[in-house]
């Protein structure tokens, strides 16, 4: 694979990096061509982030060299990386919520007047023109904290562009975006490429990789599996490169035996949702689709007692219940796997063991004492059931990969033997392999008679896993679709307009309750 050298903007040669004796990267070579979109994929722990952090100057490679725009570097400092036009957009956005869009974009480089005072007029004008260049219509005087995550991400990109930039690395930019926002991101990427900027796009979502990238480099266990142009690859070939073995990309089949009613919600209304009614049966998976902000997560929180109800009622296994707190919900056999495992699902600084057993401490207490033996058994069981990869159960959760972290969240809830499980974006930000494990686990749970409510932004996941699909729009359920009748088109139509497609209108009920 020899390319004309003037085409290559970046080449990282034979990069190795280890932490405390463990190899994170071994002899990795990576190069990308100017003005293209280069996807970087691989499972969690494969070394993608480490490689990009070396490029950004956050880590120093143990060996290897970087050739960027024809210059050789043994190491790049953060300053050099910035000054030479490398920008990184991290998944966790680095913005100040109480400052305006323009102030964030020019943070630390505020334009001054000749007197040395802030020149906010110029700052606002330049910020507006930057956002214009991205094709984004946004009031630069608004506070960043008031914007949606997707818009905040655009501010972050605009900030990168406010300096001379040749290369932008985006670390899983889509993880925080819903469908229509993704299209905006893609059009931004296209306009960047048109301006001869190189984009390195890190993602788990293969659809996106195929849609946006020109070339892809696959990392696995700290080594490069290969770099290929995407037109030469099929989806299953790419998956095979990533996981090292062929995988049937099929969702485990529903056995379709729906049991008795597990939960009935009637006319739930909170600050964020309006008159939502639904029914869950044991043994079924009900998918909840809808745009980010349509009230999906708030529905989950309302069911789980995390947000207080203004009106409405819950009936669980035939009995009317007041679920005033998550504590009450847990005692009624409910579980919620929240959308953001780092801030809502896990105690990142506590050991794996404590995270798994936090929900069942009363069951492993005899007298006043926690029983170490019972606890070890519970952890051992979870570990086997979920195939959590860990060195020891005393390891802090923050040291695990995303997929393994998600398994710990699941483990903590499965330990309670719940009858109703609410999953909010169960496979967000985890690799293909762990995804399939979670799908199979969900099926195993329904086979045991558990009722699952699954919120997801990924339509293939919704279509592949759900027995029924509820589509939310503007805080209410816009319609219900059966597994057979559901298509991406119908879901998107319901989610964006709140109404069914013309040909689907007779099946659209607007009410999930019969």
């Amino acid at each position, binding site marked *: 694979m020899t390319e004309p050298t003037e085409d290559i903007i970046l080449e990282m040669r034979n990069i190795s990096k280890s932490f405390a004796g463990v190899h994170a990267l071994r002899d990795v070579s990576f190069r990308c061509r100017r003005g293209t979109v280069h996807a970087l994929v691989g499972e969690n722990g494969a070394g993608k982030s480490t490689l990009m952090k070396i490029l950004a100057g956050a880590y120093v490679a143990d060996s290897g060299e970087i050739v960027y725009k024809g210059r050789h570097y043994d190491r790049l400092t953060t300053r050099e990386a910035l000054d030479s036009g490398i920008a990184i957009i991290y998944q966790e956005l680095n913005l100040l919520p109480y400052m305006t869009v323009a102030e964030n974009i020019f943070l630390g480089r505020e334009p001054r007047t000749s007197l040395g005072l802030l020149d906010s007029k110029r700052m606002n004008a330049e910020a507006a023109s930057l956002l214009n260049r991205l094709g984004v219509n946004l009031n630069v005087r608004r506070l960043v904290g008031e914007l949606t995550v997707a818009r905040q991400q655009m501010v972050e990109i605009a900030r990168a562009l406010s300096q001379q930039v040749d290369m932008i690395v985006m670390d899983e930019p889509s993880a925080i975006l819903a469908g229509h926002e993704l299209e905006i991101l893609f059009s931004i990427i296209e306009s960047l490429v048109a301006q001869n900027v190189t984009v390195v796009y890190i993602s788990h979502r293969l659809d996106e990789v195929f849609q946006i990238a020109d070339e892809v480099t696959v990392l696995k266990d700290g080594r490069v599996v290969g770099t290929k142009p995407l037109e030469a690859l099929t989806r299953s070939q790419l998956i095979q490169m990533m996981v090292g073995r062929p995988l049937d990309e099929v969702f485990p089949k529903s056995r379709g035996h729906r049991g008795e009613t597990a939960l009935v919600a009637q006319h739930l209304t909170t600050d964020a949702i309006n008159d939502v009614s639904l029914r869950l049966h044991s043994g079924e998976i009900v998918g909840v689709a809808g745009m980010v902000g349509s009230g999906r997560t708030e529905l989950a929180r309302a069911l789980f007692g995390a947000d207080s109800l203004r009106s409405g009622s819950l009936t669980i296994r035939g009995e009317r219940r007041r679920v005033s707190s998550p*504590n009450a919900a847990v005692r009624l056999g409910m579980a919620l796997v929240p959308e953001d495992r780092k801030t809502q699902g896990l105690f990142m600084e506590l050991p794996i063991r*404590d995270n798994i057993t*936090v929900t069942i401490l009363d069951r492993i207490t005899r007298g006043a004492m926690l029983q170490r033996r019972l606890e070890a058994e519970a952890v051992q069981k979870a570990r086997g059931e979920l195939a959590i990869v860990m060195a020891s159960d005393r390891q802090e959760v923050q*040291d*695990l990969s995303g997929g393994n972290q998600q398994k710990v969240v699941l483990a903590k809830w499965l330990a309670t033997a719940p009858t109703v499980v609410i999953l909010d974006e169960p496979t967000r930000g985890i690799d293909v392999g762990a995804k399939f494990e979670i799908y199979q686990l969900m099926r195993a749970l329904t086979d045991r008679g558990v009722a699952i409510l699954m919120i997801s932004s990924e339509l293939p996941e919704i279509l592949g896993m759900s027995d029924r699909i509820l589509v939310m729009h503007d805080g209410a359920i816009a319609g219900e679709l059966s597994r057979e009748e559901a298509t991406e088109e119908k879901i998107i139509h319901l989610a964006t307009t709140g109404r069914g497609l013309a040909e689907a209108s007779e099946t659209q009920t607007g009410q999930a309750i019969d």
Partner: protein
Amino acid sequence: MTTTLTAAIPPEARWSALRRHIPYLIVYGLILALGIYGTLNSDRFLTDRNLLNIFRQSVFIGTAAIGQTLVILSGGIDLSVGSMVKVSVLVSALLMNGQPENIGVAVVATLGLGVVVGAAHAFLITRLKVAPFIVTLGTYSILRGIAYTISTTPIGRAAPPVVQFYDLKVGPVYALIVAFFVLLVVLMFVLRRTRFGRYIYAVGGNEQVARLSGIPVNRVKYGVYILCSVLAALTGLFALSRSGVGDPNIGDGLELETISAVVIGGTSLFGGRGGLIGTLGGVLLLGLIGNLLVVLNVNQWLRDLIEGAIIVIAVALYKQKGRQ
């Protein structure tokens, strides 16, 4: 599961276990080093009498610091500890008024006052959602005001058995020290081996996660704040046994002393990380420094300076743990 994929174990993993213990190594290492220094430089240091005194003097900060540790582990802070001690000394001295038959009432009332103050803290923090720093800054001042309204000069008197308790020995050591270690061990047990203990770490680790995990977060907060104020009240009773009278100057600055001990012991001010072994180390280290200055005839005011330096250096060192 059928598809088992092995992800590489992240390199930071190995640090996980070790880095928790680094503060302990540093604190107890310092204690050992200072002990050796004291032994080599003064023949008054390594005597039974002196060592017992260090421990006995440490009981006061230590008892209050146990409560402070629980509160800080849960992600809060209690700035009212010193004022609580102050009020407790006065209340118990007044109620006792030198009469042995009043001891029971005085002790129960003083500890009961601790329950009330702690419950008030928790109520304000959980229901009215006022930050713990603000709530306890308020009660710091309120309790202090109450104490000085009661009296600005020594008032009331401890009953003789209470005064005798201060010098009472169980075998070779003071009963006060034994009582402190019993408390310490019980609460270490609570932290490590009970549900309440785990919940404290969970709430301090991430309150939102704790709530969503079904943990009764508010009850946990009631628990830690009540324990903290009750332990402060107990510190007041211990202090009364030492002073014999209700001296309103007792307890000054104790809230910061306890926070210093907790922080030097490696407990994170953000909560969720640390424990009582560290706090014990912090308390003993502070006691040892004070004692060494006396034994070596050094200017007493140096104590504050050294204490401050140790806090800053220790915490700066802990921050480096496990970083590449």
